[in-house]
């Protein structure tokens, strides 16, 4: 039970009122889906896990990653990747620059890093796109770059904040499969937040419903 993402009696309160209470474990390669209408605290939960919770909220309980307590760590030291509904590719960097921003600094040397990025682009079917302006990509291409940028940072868990809801129906299934397949291959625990039942079915894991 030590491996993966563990939310140990997590509780988020705002001014005394309990917003979210959750006790869960996501094993490596598994997906936990959290569902609920807007305003049910889904985004607050993700902010708490990434460490970007607004100070107005009070957090109790622990967040454990592979047995390590990360509750008090700043976001940048948690190594928890997150994908939002918008791809949020940095508009001032090229596609390759975006991936390089994500690529872990432990891989050293300009040539080695460039090679890693080229092969990453190849894996998502965007070979030769390194110097492209992200604003010129299609929605599906952007989503793939955002996913790869997150994976290159070598995360220990992956959070998904309704990442498929902006895509059209055809791309949606395709990207969804890619994300889950990649996460499984890297043995990442995945926490998916969505209000779309189809996403939850495709994820195939446990489902938790949050009340409004």
């Amino acid at each position, binding site marked *: 039970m030590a491996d993966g993402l563990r939310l140990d009696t997590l509780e988020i309160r705002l001014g005394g009122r309990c917003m979210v209470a959750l006790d869960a474990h996501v094993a490596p390669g598994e997906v936990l889906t959290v569902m609920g209408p807007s305003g049910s605290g889904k985004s607050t939960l993700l902010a708490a896990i990434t460490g970007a919770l607004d100070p107005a909220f009070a957090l109790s309980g622990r967040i454990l990653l592979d047995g390590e307590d990360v509750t008090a760590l*700043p976001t*940048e030291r948690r190594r928890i990747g*997150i994908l*939002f509904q918008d791809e*949020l*590719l*940095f508009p*001032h960097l090229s596609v390759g620059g975006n991936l390089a921003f994500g690529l872990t600094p432990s891989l050293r040397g300009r040539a080695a890093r460039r090679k890693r990025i080229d092969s990453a682009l190849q894996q998502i079917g965007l070979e030769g796109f390194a110097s492209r302006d992200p604003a010129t990509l299609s929605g599906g291409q952007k989503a793939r770059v955002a996913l790869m*940028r*997150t994976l290159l940072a070598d995360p220990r868990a992956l959070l998904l904040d309704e990442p498929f809801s902006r895509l059209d129906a055809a791309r949606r299934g395709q990207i969804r499969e890619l994300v889950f397949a990649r996460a499984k291959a890297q043995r990442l625990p995945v926490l998916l937040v969505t209000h779309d039942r189809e996403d939850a079915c495709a994820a195939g894991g446990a489902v938790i419903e949050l009340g409004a």
Partner: protein
Amino acid sequence: MSLLRRAPALTLLVMLGPVLAGLAGTLLPAFGIMPALGRVEPGLMPFSELAAWPGLPRAVALSLATGLGSTLLALALTMLICAGWQGTRAFRWLERALSPLLSVPHAAAAFGLAFLIAPSGWIARALAQLLGWERPPDLLILQDPWGLSLIAGLVVKELPFLLLMTLAALPALRPGQSLATARSLGYGRSAGWLKTVFPRLYPQIRLPVYAVLAFSMSVVDVALILGPNTPPTLAVQVLRWMNDPDLALRLRAAAGALLQLVLTLGALGLWRLGEMAVARIGRAWIEAGGRARHDAPLRALSFGAGALSALAIILGLTALGVWSVAGFWGFPALLPDAFTAKSWMKQGPQLLSPAADTALIALVATGVALALVLACLEAEHRFGLRPSARALWLLYLPLIVPQIAFLPGLQILALVGGVDGTITAVIAAHVIFVLPYVFLSLADPYRGWDRRNAIVGHALGASPARVFWRLRLPMLLRPMLTAMAVGCAVSVGQFLPTLLLGGGRVQTLTTEAVALASGGARRVIGVTALAQTAAAFLPFALALLIPALVWRNRKGLKHG
């Protein structure tokens, strides 16, 4: 980290410290204490000397009338333009014509206006063509004893400022919806806007209006160019006493500066009372339900006045340009007989050194201000600080306390400290006025940046410093450069801080230009005032050009 936490406090110190110190430095000599002159006994002598000056009642009346009059006119015009035209194509045209005029330095705009309305100016020349005049009319238009040309000069310069502040505040009020609702209830466009949008808008632009009022009452450079001479406005007279070789007159100057402060506070109080009266009358007007559907004449008037105001500055700058290259130019002729580069060849080299100092002062002052503002905003972001309404008041304080009230005191302190007449002292004084504008210009884009970018960056392992340098700053390049351009334009236009802290030894294009006010050397004025305008414009051009070049391959940053 801890340094960043102290950034807001440090910024307040840099900005308000000199204001308070300067006020203290004015207070002491006003009550007769000036150790440098051997005066250590407090007394009211400076005030009785001030009261004994025969020009005082008129100077005070002039300051009040020009300040209140120009502010009221500029505000009324701005509001009527918005009421009558907001959301129309004509409005966008006016907006585009007026916004760039904000960066025209006050002195250059005043000279340009003078070249238009003087008895031998372009307007009189045009009339002479029609009426067959052979000599300029014998009228005292410039520097008229009533201060009318001074009021005109202030209105044409403050109109773009108030319009821009209004445009910044408007979108959050959703004026389109209010106006559509009002019009569907049968209200005329202007009345609908004034009844539904204006009451919510005014509190948002109150501080800029106060700044305009305080500035107009105590302005020195525009008053030297367009204002009356005998007596001048109070602020100009205080400056004369400050510059008098007889150092004893500094005491009287300090007393006058203090009186200016009291006058300004009094005028602000009066304005506040006026606000309350207007609110009361306005409520009754709104509740009376009059639809006021026939506002066509009012709309025509406001549009005409707005266009005239823009035209006055644009034609004024053109007149400066024509004079700067004019050969012989006799009276009724609309254009000179010949064009020549002689004035530029002769004046140009002499302007190089002031131009270099202008650039140095503007760049360093803006750089310091930008660093402090970025540190404040980043501290706000990282430590979750919430800016209060009081913080906004503090930001406006250097713009509301009249320059002439605290800069003389600051000069005396600089004198005591042995730093007067240095470029460092001038830069420090400029930072006081550049900082609020840089902050106001950058705060909204900085706070409006999508925070999820930072979360993604952190989730990818980037430290707060890396997110700041590699993500936030590059993405905010455009608003940052715009804020710098605003800062540079403010610095370039500063007259009094340069003159007083520079002790006459630091010369900028602005001090050079204003020094020409008393003479009639039109070609020299044309060259100098245009150089001053160019110095204020250049940073704006760069602020447009640099992001366009740097991000030429980045579509996502084209409209940011």
